[in-house]
Each structure stands twice: as C-alpha cells, then as structure tokens.
C-alpha cells in the first residue's frame, strides 16, 4: 500500500484543484452551518454569540416551525406519491406497442423539460383567482360564480402545489420506470402466460419485483428532490399566506435572508440534513443493489 502511494506520489497533486473546489463549496459551508447553528447572529451587531442548543430548542417550541414541518411532510409524501402514480401509469402506457405512442411519449416529457421558474410563473397565472384561465373558463361556462382562489384559500394551496408538482415531475418517473420496464425480458411474460398467469398476476409477480430497485431509486430521488424543492414554492406562493405553504427549505431561506436569523436557519438546515441523509442511505443502497443485480 505504502509502496503504491510512493509510486503514485506525483499523481496526487492533480487531485488538488478538484479537492479545493469541493472543500470550498461543500466541506466549508457544511461545517460552518453546523458551527452557526450553535450561535445567535443578531443583525444589529457584528459579533455572534454562543447559545448552545438554544436555536434547536426554539425550533422545537416554535408553532410556525411545527406547521412548516407538517407542510413539509404533506408536501414530500403527496408530492412524491402523486407523480409516482401518474408516472407509473404513464410508463405502463408508453410501454405498450401502440400506434402514436412515440408522439405521446415526446409530448409527455414537455413538463419535465420546462424549467421550474417559467413553469411556476405560468401556473401562477393559470391558477390566479381573478385572471386565471381555470377560473375564467369555469365562469364563462357558467359552472361557478365566484372565482376560485387556488393559492390563497387554506384548503386549496397544498393540493394546488402538489398538483403542479405532479404535472412537473411525473415525466421523470415515467422515463425512469419506462427504462426499467424495457429491461424486463419479454420471455418472462411469455413464460408466465404459458404458466397460467393473468395480466394482473404478471404485473405483481414479474413487473413489480423486476422493477423493485428502479422503483426504490426513483421514489428516493423524487422524495429528496421534493424536500429540497425551493423554486416552485417560492415563486408560486413564497411560502404564504401565513406560512400555509411554507416548507423547511423556504423557511430556512426566509429565516436567513429576510429575518437574518442565520443561527436559527442553520439549526433547521442541520435537522433537514439529518433527515435527508437517512433517505440518501436508502437511495444509495437501492442504487448499489440495482447495479449489482444489473437492474
């Protein structure tokens, strides 16, 4: 080992630039965030003060933060589940050998190809209570009288956001699962048909087990992506009204750059990091297992 290291000693300097960039962009902010989470950073003064676990205590006792955590759970769970179901159905559909499906496949990727910023702006207008095309259409059809305030009414905000996220993310699920479906050998279905399996049995006995790793990887990627989803929520609602659509990442941003409570925001970041690292472990496990098993 030592001999090997000595043999390659002149190779190591080539790693330095990459290590430098990683250190600057990942390692330093990571440790600085942990460090800051134990400090109070009053905006009126240049110094910072060590406060121990006070920031964490404050988070656990803060009613707004509790609401934010609840929102985050609802958002992450349903924001994963809905695109997953729609994407899975779409993948099963485009996997059929039907005419015109190539075109449909292309069309369905459009939402995924669109950036989050333009898509969010577009949807904000579509859902607008007064000028939105949905309210407008329903009103001109005479189906409703009053406008529907999708992004203002408490019971409609989260469902609306989740609906948009479903529209935006289902193509990702579709592509992943479609790729997975393509790798299942046709002969397995033929064998199952001869063995007497119905379409339903084929789905449960072959498709699902054969896709299990792809399903796991896709779900984890989607879930982690949703927990970190800043753009869509910030543009659509900015977390409002009254924190009804605030999730942890948007809350961290607002706590840092609007109320300038960097210590408190750092504590929330550390908590979010701990949750995400657990899911990341599941993700990496599923990924390596699928690599070992070849899908």
């Amino acid at each position: 080992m030592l001999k090997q290291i000595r043999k390659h000693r002149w190779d190591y300097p080539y790693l330095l630039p990459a290590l430098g960039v990683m250190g600057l962009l990942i390692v330093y902010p990571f440790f600085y965030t942990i460090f800051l989470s134990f400090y109070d950073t009053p905006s009126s003064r240049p110094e910072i003060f060590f406060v121990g676990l006070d920031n964490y205590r404050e988070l656990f006792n803060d009613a707004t933060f509790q609401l934010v955590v609840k929102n985050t759970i609802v958002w992450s769970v349903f924001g994963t589940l809905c695109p997953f179901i729609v994407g899975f159905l779409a993948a099963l559909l485009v996997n059929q050998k039907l005419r015109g499906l190539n075109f449909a496949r292309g069309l369905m990727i459009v939402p995924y190809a669109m950036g989050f910023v333009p898509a969010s702006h577009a949807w904000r207008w579509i859902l607008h209570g007064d000028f939105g095309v949905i309210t407008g259409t329903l009103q001109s059809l005479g189906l409703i009288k009053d406008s529907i305030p999708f992004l203002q009414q408490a019971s409609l905000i989260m469902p609306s956001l989740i609906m948009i996220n479903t529209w935006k993310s289902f193509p990702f699920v579709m592509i992943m699962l479609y790729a997975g479906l393509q790798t299942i050998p046709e002969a397995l279905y033929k064998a199952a048909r001869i063995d007497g399996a119905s379409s339903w049995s084929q789905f449960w006995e072959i498709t699902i087990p054969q896709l299990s790793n792809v399903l796991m990887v896709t779900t984890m990627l989607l879930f982690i992506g949703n927990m970190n989803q800043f753009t869509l929520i910030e543009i659509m609602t900015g977390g409002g009204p009254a924190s009804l659509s605030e999730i942890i990442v948007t809350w961290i941003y607002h706590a840092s750059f609007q109320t300038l409570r960097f210590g408190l925001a750092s504590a929330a970041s550390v908590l979010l990091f701990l949750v995400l690292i657990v899911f990341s472990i599941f993700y990496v496990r599923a990924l390596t297992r699928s690599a070992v098993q070849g899908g």
Partner: protein
Amino acid sequence: MAEVSLKNIVKLYGDVRAVDGVSLDIHDKEFVTLVGPSGCGKTTTLHMIAGLIELDGGDILIGKNNVSELDPKDRDIAMVFQNYALYPHKSVRDNLMFPLRMRKIDKTTAAQRVSRASKILSIEQLLDRKPKQLSGGQQQRVALGRAIVRDPAVFLMDEPLSNLDAKLRVQMRTEIKHLQQELQATMIYVTHDQIEAMTMSDRIAVMDKGKVQQFGSPDELFNRPNNVFVAGFIGNPPMNLIPAQLVSEGGSKKLRMGQITYSPQTGHVHDLMNKAAGEKVIVGLRNTAIQMVAPGTAGSILTEVYTVEPTGDVTYVQTNIGDKMCTISSPDVAYRGRLGDPLTLRIDETRLYLFDDLSGKAIW
C-alpha cells in the same frame, strides 16, 4: 399426452409470409423437431402452437381440441425457452411452484410434483437458490422442471440448448431425449442445429422460407431428401451439390460438371437422367459417396487437393469438382495431402442424387 395437428397455419408480418401454410400431424408421444436456418419460421410456428403468436390462417389441434383461439394457459402446453426465462427474483422452488400456484393446485399436490420433478432432474439440492446462482446447465434443468411439474399434454422447446457450451449441449441432448421417453411425452423441439435434430427426433420437419420442405424420419431426410435445400441442410458435412448439364455424346447421356464430363456406368443414374425435365441438373453426392482411389482406376475423375481437414476420427479433403468446392472423406485418416496434390476420385453411383436445377426437387 396428445397428438398435435397443424392445419395450413399462416403468419403474416406485413407482406412477409413468416409461416406459409404449414401442416403437420404429430403423433402422441412423438419427438418432433422443427429445424431450419434463421428466419425459416420454425420459432414462429412453435410460438403459434403455444398461443404466444396469433394465427393469420389455419387451425391448430391439440388432442381433439381446436386451440387456435385459446390463450396459452388454456392449451395444456409447457414451454422451455432458449434463455430459460426463469423468474430471476424467485428461488428455484418458487419457479417450479409458479405454474402450479397460478393454476390453484393445492399445496400438498404441488409440493409432491415439485419434489418429483426435482428428483427426475437431480436439482433437489438447488431448490433454495436463485437462478443467478446456477450454472447454465442447472438453469436449463430448472426450466425443464418448470415444464415437467405441469404434466402438460405437449412440451414445446425453443432452442433450449443453444445457450450452453458444446460439451454440455451434447450431455443435455441425451438427457432431454431420455426424459421424453421416460415421461412418454409429446415434444415439439425447435433448433437450427441439424445434428441435434437428427440425434433426438422421431421425425423432423425441415423448414425454409416459412414452408415445410420435408417431414420425415432422420433416415428418410438423410437418404431420400425431397429437394436441394434438405439435401444441403441435413448431414454433416452437408451434401456436395454440383451444378451439371446433361449432354449427349456418342449416343449416350453424360453429366458435364464444369470441365469434367462424366460417363455414368450404372442404370440407376441413367434412369435418373432420363427422368430429368431439363438439361440443367444438380448432382448430389455425400462426402462418403466420393471415394479416393488409386490413379488409373476406370471411370475415375481427376482433381487436386485444396485443403485437408483432419478431425481425429475422420479426415476431410476439400477439392474442386466441376467448379464447386466439395468435401470428401479420406479412407486413410492419416492422409495429409498438400495444396495441388493430384486426387483420383470414383463416384459411388448408387448414392448419386439428381435434382432439377429449376425447381430444386429431387428426381426419383
């Protein structure tokens, strides 16, 4: 077990007639092989029997039932696939159980059947393994086991040995043949390997271009091929097929093969020549029907060595007869002629075949 009848079955892919009016009557407990080159329609035919491909015409009967419109599961067949098609996430036991579970056979009976099948195939010690943990030969046995547990009327085998190495293939060939006899099963077997077909089958259907070229016992196909295709396909090495012209010289008919004008000595060949419809024919000679003889032998033809291919128990000599590269067997295994060495050859006329050049049909 049951007999299987294919009645003029047709499969079209656009304008291509992949299976073009195939009719076969397969007896109960018979081992029948569909053999032919890639794209001849043999696998499509098998999949049509299985119900995996729909018919565009004709009927398929298993036993007395017309199964043409039935689902694969209702045809009472089992199939072994080229790549085994074992369910990768299930253990060997669960793979064997699967067809029984799907048919809602009670657990005790199912377990008995699995145990019997695994005993027949000597895979009892593999039951808890996953397919990935098995060798190719073991996977093949499991695939056979999955077919056996069903106790079907007909076994369908889609090139089951082509993924195995040469040595294992020979071994499994014997085992499948033995299994078929032990189970008294009707078996329809697809392969592109004519040796597999010859060694295993009661009868063989040689297919080409979606049609059955000949259906008969291995002996019939070898000794009385219907046409040029069968003659060239069956036998190893394949029959030498030499284009020839019938010419009249000095009042008797002769065969002109390239530069060689050959005067047949026997009435058999003269009979064949008289039956030929046109002047152009194809002379068919197995490698053993051309003999190397001493120089100066009466009625012999002269050629030269192109290459010599020793295989151990036989030595093949390649030589040009009438502009056609032909393979003959040297009577002396140790013969090692070199390029250009003179050869004196005598044709065993009792084993000479003539085919019509235009239709390719054998002249009898």
